[in-house]
């Protein structure tokens, strides 16, 4: 006798500039197809919502078809559809939500409209198995920098702290611009930093010693710009590698310090890191070091699953299906400011 297969869940993600379609069974990742419009945004130095939305419309069906082909399944095999309902860019979200509803209608299968941030946590189950509960999650991307307490990934996620101004990824983009590096700023700064001295320049760590679990990256970004401008004004060359390494150290230092603080304050010994900035090599290394010292078990998905993708949405959808959660209604909307406490809409 063979074990019955877990339900096959199609996940759709369009909250920002990535059109993602993923296929997941239980904790098993079958396909993860992502079409990014990032190249179209590069010359604007940031994501242009209308450019992203137009790209989603064109990429949606092909992305799903590619995922199906990779997994070797057909739409008829799909048991449920999950989609990011928010938070994110309204126009971009609506393309994915509308597509997901149309798949649900055409296939006669249930729809699960889910939270993007909770999906960033759930995706780790595809790599490291069932998530220990409770767990602390650090989510860092171009749009978010949050610390969350996940008592139950399918239903009880509480915010502990968040950035009060720029997201960490946003600071990376702005610093990259000051240094003449391309958008998005994360990868080129990470690359430059490898050849630089992280202790070369003492950039500020905002809210470092306060008792909150909030972040602030706006002052850091300005401090880097000021340092670079002063240097240029003095007619000196800018040591790009040292600036990148020192900036990156300041970001990773604050993020990991507060993440450990969040674990301690809540008596939780598991930390999950997700979001695009979780692909950063220094953040990963420093988090590993500090978690080990603090006796915290660290779980970070591989970089490809940290950035926005459809598999993470399917992973959360699969968890909801497994727990017999009530599907969303067909009149569910997109919510650009969906609170993380709403895991399923």
């Amino acid at each position: 006798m063979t074990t019955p297969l877990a339900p096959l869940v199609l996940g759709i993600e369009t909250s920002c500039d990535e059109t993602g379609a993923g296929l997941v069974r239980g904790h098993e990742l079958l396909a993860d197809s992502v079409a990014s419009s990032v190249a179209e945004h590069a010359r604007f130095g940031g994501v242009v919502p209308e450019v992203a939305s137009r790209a989603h419309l064109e990429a949606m069906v092909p992305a799903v078809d590619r995922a199906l082909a990779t997994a070797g399944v057909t739409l008829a095999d799909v048991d449920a559809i999950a989609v990011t309902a928010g938070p994110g860019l309204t126009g971009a979200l609506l393309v994915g939500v509308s597509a997901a509803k149309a798949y649900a209608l055409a296939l006669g299968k249930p729809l699960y409209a889910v939270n993007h941030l909770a999906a960033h946590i759930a995706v780790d189950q595809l790599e490291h198995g069932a998530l220990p509960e409770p767990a602390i999650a650090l989510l860092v991307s171009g749009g978010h920098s949050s610390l969350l307490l996940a008592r139950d990934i399918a239903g009880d996620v509480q915010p502990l702290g968040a950035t009060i101004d720029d997201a960490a990824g946003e600071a990376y983009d702005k610093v990259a611009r000051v240094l003449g590096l391309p958008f998005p700023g994360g990868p080129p700064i990470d690359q430059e930093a490898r050849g630089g001295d992280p202790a070369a320049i003492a950039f500020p760590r905002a809210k470092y010693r306060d008792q909150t679990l909030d972040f602030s990256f706006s002052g850091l970004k300005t401090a880097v710009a000021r340092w670079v401008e002063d240097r240029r004004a003095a007619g000196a060359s800018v040591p790009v590698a040292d600036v990148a390494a020192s900036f990156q150290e300041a970001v990773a230092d604050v993020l990991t310090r507060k993440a450990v603080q969040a674990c301690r304050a809540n008596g939780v010994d598991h930390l999950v890191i997700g979001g695009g900035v979780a692909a950063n090599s220094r953040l990963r290394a420093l988090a590993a070091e500090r978690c080990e010292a603090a006796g915290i078990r660290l779980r970070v998905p591989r970089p490809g699953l940290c950035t926005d993708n459809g598999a993470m949405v399917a992973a959360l959808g699969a968890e909801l299906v497994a727990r017999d959660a009530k599907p969303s209604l067909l009149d569910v909307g997109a919510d650009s400011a969906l609170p993380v406490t709403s895991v399923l809409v």
Partner: protein
Amino acid sequence: MLLLAFDTATPAVTVALHDGAHVLAETTTVDARRHGELLASSIDAVLTEAGAGRLDITAVAAGTGPGPYTGLRVGLVTARVLGSALGVPVYGVSTLDVIAADAAAAAGGREFIVATDARRREVYWARYDATGRRLDGPAVGIPADVAETIAARQDAPGSQGAPGGPGILAAGTGALLYPGVLGQPIEPSYPAAGTLARLAARQFAAGAPGTGAEPIYLRRPDARVPGPPKRVTVP
């Protein structure tokens, strides 16, 4: 045949089912801010009303705009996904042509335009002859400029316009939004999915291949390439 038609390029979300001869069910809700919420449930509602199932659908038609982008895309991505998932052809028809097909009767044998809200104090417009055949457009422009353009063309020799007559007849909400600028309003204000279905059913019955659901945007995305980063220190 069972053709599912819908349009989301104006404040109206309109959905209809057509069997090749008649409209079996039709529903229209005017709410500019809820296209994403309304479309799928409206589709579900017309299927239920007609006693049809999702697998009975043999073709899909969608209004391709022009219209405010976010709402427009709700309809177009829905049409593309339904076409792909059900394995049926998708027909795209300009939203202005759908309005024109119903406006011809109200125009009483005269030329007319269809003008809809393009926001930013502009309208999407197209010009039609008395039978509803498109002569100009679709285009986007400032209402006063559009009126000037139309007046010049209507008065052109060989045109059916009536120089010295009561001026331009305009279907769509454009003439209502800009009273006294875009001419005399005529019905309808919004597209009817039943009419869209009728236009597309003709194509489908004639064996025409699906045209896909291509958006008519008419404007480029609003984005400016930034200059060098702003200084944070005083030079």
